[in-house]
């Protein structure tokens, strides 16, 4: 048995008090098994970021930088009144920021690549359909034709030296690409901070990196006809994975589903597929390609993928049949949910 003097006991109590007081500071700086999550409403959707293997303090800094990057993209490219994109659309031409110029240029590149299936000048058609306002009679054929004549990515001219964009009488909607661009910027911000294990999720536009406590991240793929349930659970490789579907934003009128992915060539909602999921190295590429493949029929979409190096796709066609590109199961293998 050891006996302690009063002085020793007091020293012992002082040490314990110190540990108790230091605990919040110490624990905030120790990487734990906790998954840190934060969500904000940006770019018209719920954006969630999950971080693993980092301290609370580092997670706080990561959220600050990543959401900051997303907020900047949202401010610039949302199209809200007063935003730089809105100003460009109302003036018809002008000098833009490096970031906006980059996204417009990339959007035009994907438009050319997909033969116009993805087209950032689809804004007049989206404004006509107003899907987000709920059930109402769809536009008439003359109304559709009038709006369709304002669409065409080849109208837009850009000058990289002066960052000047001339819209050629059309208007831009970057909804099919800016969210992916924002996810990429947020992911870069996290990596620059040395955070390697994370998911940036902008309403289903995902970028995944690393793992959570040694286990792979798992992602549920919504069933397009019963979106509350999963069609599959996937464990994608590091990179981006994005789904475009006809079930996320739609209304029904006289038994017909009208959704938000408009085929620029017909001025009607695209009908070949129910959902298209694309894995790619960047969220911007996955975002643009998922829209392009949704507008194209599955066969044409898969042919387009063959011409590209990297992206893979899973397509649920209009009858529910599933088509996969040859490398999809390697890029995003199916796993058990548990």
């Amino acid at each position, binding site marked *: 048995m050891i006996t302690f003097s009063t002085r020793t006991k007091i020293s012992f109590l002082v040490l314990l008090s110190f540990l108790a007081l230091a605990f919040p500071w110490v624990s905030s700086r120790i990487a734990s098994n906790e998954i840190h999550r934060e969500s904000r409403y940006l770019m018209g959707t*719920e954006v969630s970021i999950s971080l693993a293997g980092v301290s609370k303090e580092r997670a706080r800094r990561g959220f600050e930088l990543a959401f900051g990057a997303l907020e900047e993209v949202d401010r610039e490219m949302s199209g809200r009144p007063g935003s730089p994109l809105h100003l460009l659309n109302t003036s018809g031409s002008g000098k833009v920021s490096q970031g906006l110029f980059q996204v417009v240029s990339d959007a035009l590149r994907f438009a050319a690549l997909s033969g116009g299936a993805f087209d950032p000048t689809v804004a007049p058609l989206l404004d006509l359909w107003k899907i987000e306002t709920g059930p109402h009679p769809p536009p008439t054929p003359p109304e559709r034709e009038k709006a369709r004549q304002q669409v065409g990515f080849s109208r837009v001219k850009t000058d990289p030296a002066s960052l000047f964009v001339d819209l050629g009488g059309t208007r831009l909607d970057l909804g099919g690409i800016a969210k992916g661009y924002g996810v990429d910027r947020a992911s870069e911000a996290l990596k620059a901070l040395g955070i390697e294990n994370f998911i940036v999720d902008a309403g289903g536009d995902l970028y995944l990196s690393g793992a*959570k406590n040694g286990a792979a991240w798992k992602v549920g793929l919504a069933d397009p006809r019963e979106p*509350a349930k999963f069609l599959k659970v996937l464990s994608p490789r590091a990179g981006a994975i994005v789904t475009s579907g006809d079930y996320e934003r739609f209304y029904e009128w006289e038994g017909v589903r009208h959704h938000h992915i408009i085929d620029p060539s017909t001025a009607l909602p695209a009908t070949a597929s129910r959902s298209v999921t694309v894995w790619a190295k960047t969220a911007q590429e996955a975002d643009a390609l998922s829209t392009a493949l949704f507008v194209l029929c599955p066969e044409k979409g898969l042919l387009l993928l063959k011409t590209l190096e990297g992206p893979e796709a899973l397509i649920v066609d209009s009858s529910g049949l599933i088509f996969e590109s040859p490398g999809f199961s390697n890029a995003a293998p199916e796993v058990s949910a*548990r």
Partner: protein
Amino acid sequence: MRRTVAPLDLLLIPILFAGVLLWPGADERGGEPLAFIKSGGETRREPLTPDRALLLQGPLGATAVRFEKGEVFIESSPCPEKTCIRMGRAGPGGGGVACLPNRVSILVTGKGEGGGVDAVLK
């Protein structure tokens, strides 16, 4: 009177300290399927049973969320499209329902938050 302390007692200090440090991760493991419901900037964890209803306030008004037979779904919503109501029911196999206009989202995971899916492609 001098009280005595056994040397092994001293081991309790680092053990207790380590236990407290690791505790935040403990609720991520095991357990029954849970619904993580986000609304009004807060996330709440709800078991899928028993049957009950919740009213969640969003910018457009109240969204009614119902738990029934181990599944959860949005019963009524003030949003214009009502897409959230047509999304169906998320059950113990995992799934998600969301009303973006009214800023309500529900993610049902498998066994605890760490055991199910981490995100939903939608």
